[in-house]
């Protein structure tokens, strides 16, 4: 089973974990992205995320479908937040349950690595003295 969401409100980490747990699962791996206070030594005030929503959902679903095909996992959930997030807030939660932990770890890591490469979500770092779209320039 798959649960994909793109949302404005805070991601409910506990509810995400609860959703992936099943009686056949021996383990759950969860990745929680958090907004760091610095980037390349510079103080970050906030991150502003925007998405090409329809395509972001479809790319996230592709990742989940691929995970389900490649690893023996029970459930995978990907919830991504958009909007302006302060330091410490959570842009993304990925949770994967599986009978055995290796599959949960591999699948969760694959999902976040792939999300960062393929899902059309864009973040702007907001500094005291300006704003920068992350990764836009070489």
């Amino acid at each position, binding site marked *: 089973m798959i649960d994909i969401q793109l949302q404005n409100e805070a991601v409910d980490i506990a509810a995400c974990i609860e959703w992936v747990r099943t009686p056949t699962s021996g383990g759950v791996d969860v990745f929680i992205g958090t907004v760091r206070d610095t980037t390349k030594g510079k103080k970050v005030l906030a991150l502003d995320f925007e998405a*090409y929503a329809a*395509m972001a959902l479809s790319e996230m679903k592709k990742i989940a479908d691929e995970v389900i095909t490649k690893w023996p996992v029970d459930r995978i959930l990907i919830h991504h937040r958009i909007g302006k997030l302060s330091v410490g807030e959570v*842009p993304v939660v990925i949770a994967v349950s599986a009978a055995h932990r290796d599959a949960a770890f591999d699948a969760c890591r694959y999902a976040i690595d792939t999300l*960062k490469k393929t899902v*059309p*979500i*864009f973040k702007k770092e907001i500094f005291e003295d300006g704003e920068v*779209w992350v*990764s836009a320039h070489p």
Partner: protein
Amino acid sequence: MKITLLAFGIVKDIFKAPQLEIDCEVADAGALKQMLADKYPELKKLAHYMVAVNNEYATDTTAIKEGDEIAIIPPVSGG
């Protein structure tokens, strides 16, 4: 033909608009990218940018026709 381009991230800043209506004759995504690069030289300074046609990443040979949902996608940075 008339097409609408959706812009995201830094492309919105480059186009100075979240979407652009243009009238042009481009057969595929490759030709569109070339046309845009000529018109918006700032695009060439990006690490890269992609075209998506109807919510799927396009290659240079992906055909474009009137009515398609076309998006210009700069480097993604979700997560």
